[in-house]
């Protein structure tokens, strides 16, 4: 089957059928009019032949819909360009060996969630000894000194720790995302680090379910890692970045 990469569409069971599923709630009670409203809305999204396969009144004048349809739009896959974290992914053993060979001292990594964010699941997955999904966390790396500062660390305290521990890399985890509060926290940290003259002296990384590399670069971070990231991805990035900047990380330390 030949796929036209300049014109790709969602696939259900026939090439270019555009099959797509949606679910949403409208703030009106269940009725035939509500169903029609759902269909018209879906059409406006560029989806043909909308089919309301399920609807349910949620009890307080709101109706939930599941709708299938055929997307009319397509994208030119050959013109896509995405910002990616540029690195070679190494495993636990390769990273420790890389540090011994190319850096020749322990790499200091601090992790924290900042602002009011109390969620540490993501941070713990990267930092904790045991790690996540069978991949050891940074605390387990013999060549890395990892400090997990935990949740809700004030920015001032984080900065003090960066000085005290002479951190090479700082990992920030942001989970809570209601009304984009994570963006505010992340921006404030960069501002403070710049004011302290620390920004260029560390590798600054952000991770979380709503984070991607492009957003991270935009906010002034060196890298952004989203869902599915494991400790070795983060560690690979840190050590390669350090070697790329020998004037900062390999000499006058």
């Amino acid at each position: 089957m030949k796929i036209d990469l300049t014109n790709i569409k969602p696939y259900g069971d026939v090439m270019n059928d555009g099959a797509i599923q949606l679910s949403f709630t409208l703030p009106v009670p269940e009725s035939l009019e509500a169903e029609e409203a759902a269909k018209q809305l879906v059409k406006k999204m560029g989806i043909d032949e909308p089919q309301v396969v399920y609807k349910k009144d949620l009890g307080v004048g709101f109706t939930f819909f599941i709708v299938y349809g055929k997307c009319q739009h397509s994208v030119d896959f050959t013109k896509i360009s995405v910002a990616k974290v540029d690195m070679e992914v190494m495993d636990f053993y390769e990273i420790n060996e890389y540090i011994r060979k190319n850096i020749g001292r322990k790499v200091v990594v601090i992790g924290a969630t900042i602002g009011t964010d109390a969620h540490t699941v993501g941070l713990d997955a990267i930092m904790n000894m045991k790690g996540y999904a069978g991949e050891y966390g940074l605390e387990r790396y013999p060549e890395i000194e990892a400090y997990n500062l935990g949740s809700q660390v004030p920015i001032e305290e984080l900065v003090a720790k960066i000085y005290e521990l002479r951190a090479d890399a700082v990992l920030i985890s942001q989970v809570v995302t209601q009304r984009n509060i994570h963006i505010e926290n992340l921006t404030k940290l960069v501002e403070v680090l710049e004011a302290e003259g620390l920004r260029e002296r560390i590798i600054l990384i952000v991770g979380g379910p709503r984070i991607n590399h492009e957003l991270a670069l935009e906010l002034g971070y060196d890298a952004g890692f989203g869902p599915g990231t494991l400790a070795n991805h983060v560690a690979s990035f840190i050590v390669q970045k350090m070697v790329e900047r020998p004037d900062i990380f390999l000499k006058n330390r």
Partner: protein
Amino acid sequence: MSNRINIDEALVIRARRLADEITEEVIDFIKQYTTVSVERAVVRLFGVDGVDDEGIPLPNVVVDNILRAGELGRGAAFWIANAMACYGKSAQEIAESVAHGEIDLTRVPVQREESIEKIIRELSQEAFQKIRFNNKVRREYIERLGLGKEPYLYVIVATGNIYEDVIQAKAAAKQGADIIAVIRTTGQSLLDYVPYGATTEGFGGTYATQENFRIMRKALDEVSEEVGRYIRLTNYSSGLCMPEIAAIAALERLDVLLNDAMYGILFRDINMQRTFVDQFFSRMLISYADIIINTGEDNYLTTADAYEEAHTVIASQFINEQFGLKAGLREEQLGLGHAFEMNPDMEDGLLWEIAQAQLVRELFPNSPIKYMPPTKYMTGNIFRGHIQDGMFNLVSVLTNQTIHLLGILTEAIHTPFMHDRYLSIENARYIMNNARHLYEEISFKPGGRIEIRANEVLKKAVEMLEEIKKIGLMQAISKGMFAQVKRTMTGGKGLEGVVKKKMDYINPFYRTEGEREGSRL
């Protein structure tokens, strides 16, 4: 006790005795101290409410006035009653005068002991009367309307706006929820005051305020009538204001409070001394108000591995139980917590979840066990997530859990949308209804995997309690024995609010020895 998994009774007795000894040592410490939050709770129960011109809550204004003079060790009750006796004003008027700089509480001439005691007695009786009245109203609702079937379906609302929360909560009740929890705004646990009034701006949740409590309880009373069962309301007696939240929850007829003896220390880095003192007094207030507590052991498993660290949950439950009973809570008020957090890729993971849930159920047969859904391994694949929640629902009904916090398929993506909650309730109702009496039809294979696993976990829990007993609970926390988090005696937030009691300390809400049955009411 039903014993379906052949638990070694001697081990259970041993575990309780160890937890009794472990907590006794901490309580000896606790009794020597009070905190700013304990005293603010007393001030609130005396009827003081509102804020000063700068928006600072009056209970803070009053307690800070006494703290600055170094006299908090005598108890805020004493200084307020003394000022009331001197000026013939109400507690609220005294607080307002302090806010206006007209009164410095510790400089008010000390009045006759009998008149101070009389005022304290009257004010506390009034507060107890309000609480007693609330308990009666709740009992009447439950008698008249009844409750949902166990496991009670517990859902969260978290819009940040109390009025938006009301819409979501009513919808949830109509869809079948039995308990509504209003999640607090992120960061509230670290505020050393309780915000004031109705609020519409929060992140990942809504401020816990007395007015918000009132608004939501009223809305749930209305919807209870509509759906024909009493809908319970939950909030959080945790963080730096544990006792104050307990006080306002008692005044506004909340039904369930998250309240853990160690959670704040481990997960919010609140000072250990502060939390121990606060949790003890907050539980006394909770005991008077017939509120069910939910403890937070489930959180251990989001940090540490659920399979390997399962015994730490059990050990902590025994400790939470003893702290609770000693503060005057009844077993029926002790919603000890645990969670369905094993790695879904693990072979036989479901068996280990059943073993754990059945073990908890049997160790605490009279307690309304709180069972938390998968969160750690929820990925954003909502289709798989919905099935993970389904497995959790099955284990819950199969092992007779009591308070069932619903998992929501969009966990790990955003705070729940209205239809996410609906899908989640539908999932639970389907499975629990479909498997309602499965429990009565099956027995666990003697010497089988589930029985062996449950007994191993219990044995390790007892070993852990033995070790804690040896070094003391505070030292055990310092060593990272819970959730692999290390906290020290003087580290963390809120230590400056801990004050040594003086010999003549007065707190009319403090339960004394021999009053464990709530005889004050």
